[in-house]
């Protein structure tokens, strides 16, 4: 790692935002660079000072009461307007001629994302972001015995990592990601020029039911097996993604690891 790059990463390093590989490279540089050491010390001084001395304004109890009262009013107001009044105001607002056409357009627009669970939307967003920001992998390896141990100590569970290279879906690495408020393992596979993010996390409050969703050309397919949730996301076609999922399902061992 060169000096400029190291200097630029001191902030994220201090904030604990670097992945392990970058972190180690930076520490290697830091050990031999007094200028970066000094800069880091200054940064730590500053951030420590900001965190300890900046007042955090707390909302007054009156504000909470005020908001609760306003919410109650809002609730009862929307509950007491008779349906025909709501209907007539909408009718007047839109006018009569365009209404039918407008409603059709609205309905089509709504149904485009309706019915897709937020989890799948979030997973698709994570997938897209992983391709955009040049942060597909934290650990790049085609060896499942390198990828799996990499997650140890970063997650409170151990994801099963299988390699499908012989079937045309080579494993290429792993990454930590966040889904539904928790850290999850993202295992990355490649198919020609396309990538598949396979998110794995323990199924605690919900299980996935093998439904395939299509969101703006990305496909997401989630299932639950042996207490773990799996969610595969890719720009691959539906047929190939299903094939991939079938192979993963066949190869994951049917027992909850660590229990």
């Amino acid at each position: 790692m060169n000096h400029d790059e190291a200097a630029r990463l001191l902030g994220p390093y201090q904030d604990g935002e670097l992945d392990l590989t970058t972190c180690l490279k930076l520490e290697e540089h830091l050990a031999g660079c007094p200028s970066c050491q000094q800069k880091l010390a200054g940064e730590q001084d500053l951030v420590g000072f900001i965190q300890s001395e900046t007042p955090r304004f707390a909302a007054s109890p009156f504000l909470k009461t005020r908001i609760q009262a306003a919410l109650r009013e809002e609730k009862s107001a929307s509950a007491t307007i008779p349906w025909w009044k709501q209907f007539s105001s909408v009718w007047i607002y839109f006018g009569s001629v365009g209404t039918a056409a407008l409603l059709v357009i609205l309905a089509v627009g709504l149904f485009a994302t309706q019915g897709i669970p937020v989890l799948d939307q979030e997973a698709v967003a994570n997938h897209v972001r992983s391709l955009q920001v040049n942060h597909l992998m934290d650990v790049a390896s085609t060896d499942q015995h390198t990828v799996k141990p990499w997650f140890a100590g970063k997650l409170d569970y151990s994801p099963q990592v299988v390699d499908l290279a012989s079937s045309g879906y080579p494993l290429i690495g792993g990454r930590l990601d966040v889904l539904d408020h928790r850290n999850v393992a993202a295992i990355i596979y490649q198919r020609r020029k396309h990538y598949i993010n396979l998110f794995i996390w323990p199924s605690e409050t919900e299980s996935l039911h093998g439904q395939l969703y299509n969101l703006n050309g990305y496909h997401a397919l989630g299932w639950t097996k042996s207490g773990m949730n799996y969610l595969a996301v890719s720009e691959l076609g539906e047929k190939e993604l299903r094939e991939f999922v079938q192979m993963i399902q066949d190869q994951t061992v049917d027992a909850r690891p660590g229990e």
Partner: protein
Amino acid sequence: MFGVEQHRDADANQGQPDFEQVFLPHLDAAYNLARWLLRNDQDAEDAVQEAYMRAYKAFARFRGGDGKAWFMIILRNVCYTMIKKLRSHETPEPFDEEIHQTVGESEMQEAFRQKANAESLHISLEKLPDEFREIIVLHDLEGLAYKEIAAVVGIPIGTVMSRLARARGRLRAEIVASNAKESLS
């Protein structure tokens, strides 16, 4: 029907999770951000209340997930709309980053230690441009991770990183240049 929707039904109250249970716990975080952005109590309270009303009306579109980020996005929009109205007549104070950067790192650190106290910090933070003040509040006070900030502010993670670095650098320069009393230590 599937997945998350079923999960939602499980903790639902008449088909929906309870709005107040999901969002009122974020009141202090919301108020803190609004107060630092708008710089006075009254405006901050109005903004927070307005954000709760908007969130309530949009609640049907909330599909679970990170309630804090979802709410902070709404709050932030309300704040920036108010800022536009309130400060349309103000011109931001010019700031010459060049001058402050000609000083060497060790001199800068020394000067910072002399000037750093609660008063200079407060004044300097208020002087920062909104986008800088906001990112320091979200990260250093509210403890949001880069990824969460990216979602709330609507910028890529790389931009969060560089903006936070510039914000901190500029805050330090403001503290060093501030007229506040020098600390005794």
